[in-house]
C-alpha cells in the first residue's frame, strides 16, 4: 500500500465518520444528563430526508441543512417529552421513535420522490490553498467538504462548553445526581430537555452530512444503524466530547475500508467490509466489559422530582 492510497483511505474515513462525529456531539450531552437516547438513529434518518427534501425544493444546501436540524430537533423534542416529562423508559421511547422515523421517512420518501431518485446539490469542498499543500495532513484533513470541517471543529467547542462553562458543570452534575442539582436551585427539567433536544439536533445535522456530503440523494433506511455505533463510542470515549469524537473517527476508518476494497477489486466479497463497522463495535463492546459501569450514575434511570 503506497502513501497515496493511505491518504485516500484516511481522507475517506474522515469524510465517512463525519456523521458519526456530529451525532456524537448530541449523544454525549443527552447521556451526560442520564438519558439513553436510542432515537438518535431516527433523528439522523429524518434529518437525512429533510436535508435532501429541503435542498431539492429550494435549491439551497444551507436551507436543506436547516431542515435537517429542525427535523432532528423535532424528534428530539418528542423524545424529551417522553423521557423527561412522562418518565417513559428510555429504551422503549427510543425504539418507538426509531420505528416511527422509519415509517415516516419511508412514507415521506415515497411521497416526495415517487419517481427516480432525484439528485441534489452537495456541500461545497473547502480547501484553502495554503493548507492544501501541507504534506499528509493537507489532502487528508484540509480537503474536505464544509460539513466535515464543522464535524472536526465542533467536538473542540463542545469540550470547552462542557468543562469550562457553568452550564457544562450543571450538565455534568445532573446525570450523576439530579436531586443535588435540584437542591442547588437549578431546573433539572430544563437541563434535561435541552440536552435531549441537542441529542436530536446533532444527529439531524449528521443526517445531512450523510446525504449531502457526497451522495446527493436519499434512500430508505440509508442510515443503516450508524447512530448506534455512537452509543458504543460514548462508552469508549468516557463521555468526553473529544475522546468520543476520536472513537468515531476510528470507526470511520473501518467504514472507509469498504471503498478501498471495492477500488482494489480484491477477492474479498463486498459484503464483508460492509459488516466491518458493526463487527468492530461488537468487539469494542466485548472489550469494554467490566468498565461498563462507568458513566453518569443515573444513565437510563427515571427521575421523579416529587419522590420523598
Amino acid at each position, binding site marked *: 500500500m503506497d502513501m497515496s492510497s493511505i491518504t485516500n483511505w484516511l481522507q475517506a474515513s474522515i469524510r465517512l465518520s463525519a456523521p458519526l462525529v456530529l451525532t456524537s456531539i448530541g449523544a454525549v450531552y443527552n447521556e451526560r444528563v442520564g438519558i439513553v437516547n436510542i432515537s438518535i438513529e431516527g433523528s439522523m434518518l429524518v434529518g437525512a430526508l429533510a436535508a435532501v427534501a429541503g435542498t431539492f425544493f429550494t435549491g439551497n444546501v444551507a436551507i436543506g441543512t436547516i431542515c435537517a436540524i429542525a427535523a432532528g430537533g423535532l424528534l428530539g423534542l418528542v423524545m424529551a417529552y417522553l423521557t423527561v416529562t412522562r418518565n417513559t423508559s428510555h429504551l422503549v421511547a427510543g425504539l418507538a421513535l426509531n420505528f416511527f422515523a422509519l415509517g415516516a421517512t419511508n412514507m415521506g420518501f415515497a411521497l416526495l420522490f415517487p419517481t427516480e431518485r432525484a439528485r441534489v446539490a452537495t456541500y461545497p469542498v473547502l480547501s484553502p490553498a495554503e493548507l492544501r499543500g501541507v504534506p499528509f495532513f493537507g489532502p487528508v484533513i484540509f480537503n474536505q467538504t464544509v460539513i466535515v470541517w464543522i464535524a472536526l471543529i465542533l467536538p473542540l467547542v463542545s469540550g470547552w462548553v462542557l468543562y469550562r*462553562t*457553568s452550564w457544562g*458543570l450543571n450538565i455534568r*452534575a445532573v446525570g*450523576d445526581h439530579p436531586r443535588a442539582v435540584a437542591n*442547588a*436551585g437549578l431546573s433539572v427539567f430544563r437541563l434535561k430537555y435541552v440536552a435531549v433536544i441537542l441529542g436530536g439536533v446533532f444527529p439531524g445535522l449528521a443526517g445531512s452530512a450523510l446525504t449531502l456530503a457526497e451522495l446527493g440523494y436519499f434512500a430508505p433506511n440509508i442510515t443503516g444503524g450508524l447512530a448506534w455505533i455512537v452509543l458504543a463510542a460514548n462508552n469508549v470515549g468516557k463521555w468526553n466530547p473529544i475522546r468520543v469524537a476520536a472513537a468515531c473517527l476510528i470507526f470511520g476508518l473501518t467504514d472507509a475500508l469498504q471503498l478501498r476494497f471495492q477500488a482494489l477489486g480484491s477477492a474479498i466479497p463486498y459484503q464483508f467490509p460492509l459488516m466491518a463497522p458493526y463487527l468492530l463495535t461488537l468487539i469494542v463492546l466485548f472489550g469494554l466489559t467490566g468498565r461498563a459501569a462507568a458513566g453518569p450514575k443515573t444513565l437510563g434511570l427515571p427521575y421523579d422530582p416529587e419522590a420523598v
Partner: protein
Amino acid sequence: MDQSADVALRMVGITKTFPGVLANDDIDFELMAGEVHGLLGENGAGKTTLMNVLYGLHQPDSGEIFLNGDKVEIPSPREANDLGIGMVHQHFMLVENLTALENIVLGLPLDRPPLLDLNPARARFKGLVNEYGLGLNPSTPIWQLPVGDRQWLEILKLLFRDAQILILDEPTAVLTPSQAERLFETIRRLADKGRSIVFISHKLREMKEVADRVTVLRDGHVVGTVDPKEATPFELAQMMVGRDVFLDRRPRLPSESKQAVLEINGVSCQDDRGIPALKDLSLNVYAGEIIGVAGVDGNGQRELAECIAGLRQPTKGIIQIDGKPVSGVVHDPSLLGFIPQDRRKMGLVLGFSVAENLILKKFVESPFTRRGVMRWDAIRREANALIQEYDIMTPHSMMPVRFLSGGNQQRVVVARELSGKPALVVASQGTRGLDVGAIESVHKILLRERNRGAAVLFISAELPEVLALSDRIIIMFEGQIMGELDGESADVDLIGELMMGHREAAGMAAGGAV
C-alpha cells in the same frame, strides 16, 4: 438563647398531602433567631416533609410562611436559597464525579458568565474551612471523601450561601458518636453567632443534647413544643408515639440449649467494591437466644448477613448452620429464615402478587406444582393461611405486593421466611422504615421465634431495640467484633465506645470465638 430574640421564621397552618397520605396536617412552627430547634418524631411523622416545604421542594396545599415577619413564597429551592434558607438532607446531595469545590459552586451565580471561574470561590472555601476548622480540600473528588467529611461539606455549602436558617435532617445517621459530638459543637457555635437551626431527628437523646426547644410531630400534626432539658425521655417518647412505650427490656425465658446453631469461624469477605468487609470474624449463636448485632450501619453487618445466607462467598473461613456448611444460597426453609436489609430489592418481587411472593422459595414443590404445572388453587390456599397467621392486610392474595404498605410488605417477607420454622433466623435491619406498630409486631415475632427454640441473629443500627431484645449483644466495627456484652447489664456508653472502635475502652478481648 437570647431572651429578646426575634422570631426568625413562622410557618402557619401548613398542610400537605401526597396521594393517599396526609403528611402535614395544619402545622404551626416557629423558629427564633439564634435558636437550635429540634423536630422530633417517628419515621413518617412528617418532619422531613415540613422542612421540604420550607425549602421549596414541595408546595403546601395550604398555609403560609413568614420570614422575619414578612410573608414569603418559596416555589423552589432557588428561592429558598435566595431567602437564606439552607438544608442538609438525609441522603447527601453531592455529585460524586465532581470535586468538593465544584459541588459547592453548583447553582451559584457567576462572576463572569458563562465562564466557570473557580478562583474566588476557592479562596472563600479555604477561608471558611479555616474558620470552622474543617480540614477539607477543595480539589478532592467526592468519591474519595469519607462519609464524615461529606457531612461537613454539606454544611459548608450552606455557609457558602450565607444561610441564616439551617435545616439539618437526621445528620447523625451516618456518624459515630464522637463525630456527632463535634457536629453538636459546631451547631451550637453557629447558633451563638446568630443563625437559626432546625434539627430533625427521631432520637430522643440527641434532642436533649443539642436543642433549645423541641417540637414533636406525630402522624402529620404537632403534638407540642417543649424544653427537652425539662421533659423526661418517657414524656417525649409518649408524645412521639401516643401511647405507653416500653423502653424497658422484654421479659425473657432462660435459654436451655447449649447447641450452636450458627457457627462462624474465621470468616473474611469483601464488599461489592472489593474492599474487605469482614475480617477474620468468629461467632456462635445458640438455640433459644437472640444475639443483637449493634454498630453504625456500614461496618460489615450487611455482608455478614449475606455470607450467612449464602448470597456472598467468604474469601476465608467457614459458616455452618445446624452443622451444615453454607455453600451457595441457603434454600432449605427449615434451616434459615432470612429477613434482608432491603426488602424491596432482595426480599420481595414487587411486581408479583402476595401469593407468588409467599411461595417464592417453594413454588416447585408439591402441592404448588404438580406434574410440571403450577396449581394456583393450592397456592392461593396456602397464601390465605399465611395471610391469616401473620396478619397481612391485603384485599386478596393476588394483589400485587407493591401496593401494600411497608409494614405489610415486611409481614409478607417474615411470613415466607418463618413459615418453614427455621433453626436460624437472621433479621438484617428488619425494622427500618416501619412505623411503630409494625416494629412492635416484628419484635414480637422475633421473640416468639426465640421462644420456639430458634437461634436469632438480630442486626440493627437502632441501639434501643438491640438493647431491648437481645440476650447477648455484639458490637461490630469495620468488619470485626469489638466485644460481646450481656444483654441485661449492658452499659450504653461502653457500647458507644466499642461502636467507634475503641478496644482499649472495652477492656475485654475483641473478636475471637464467642
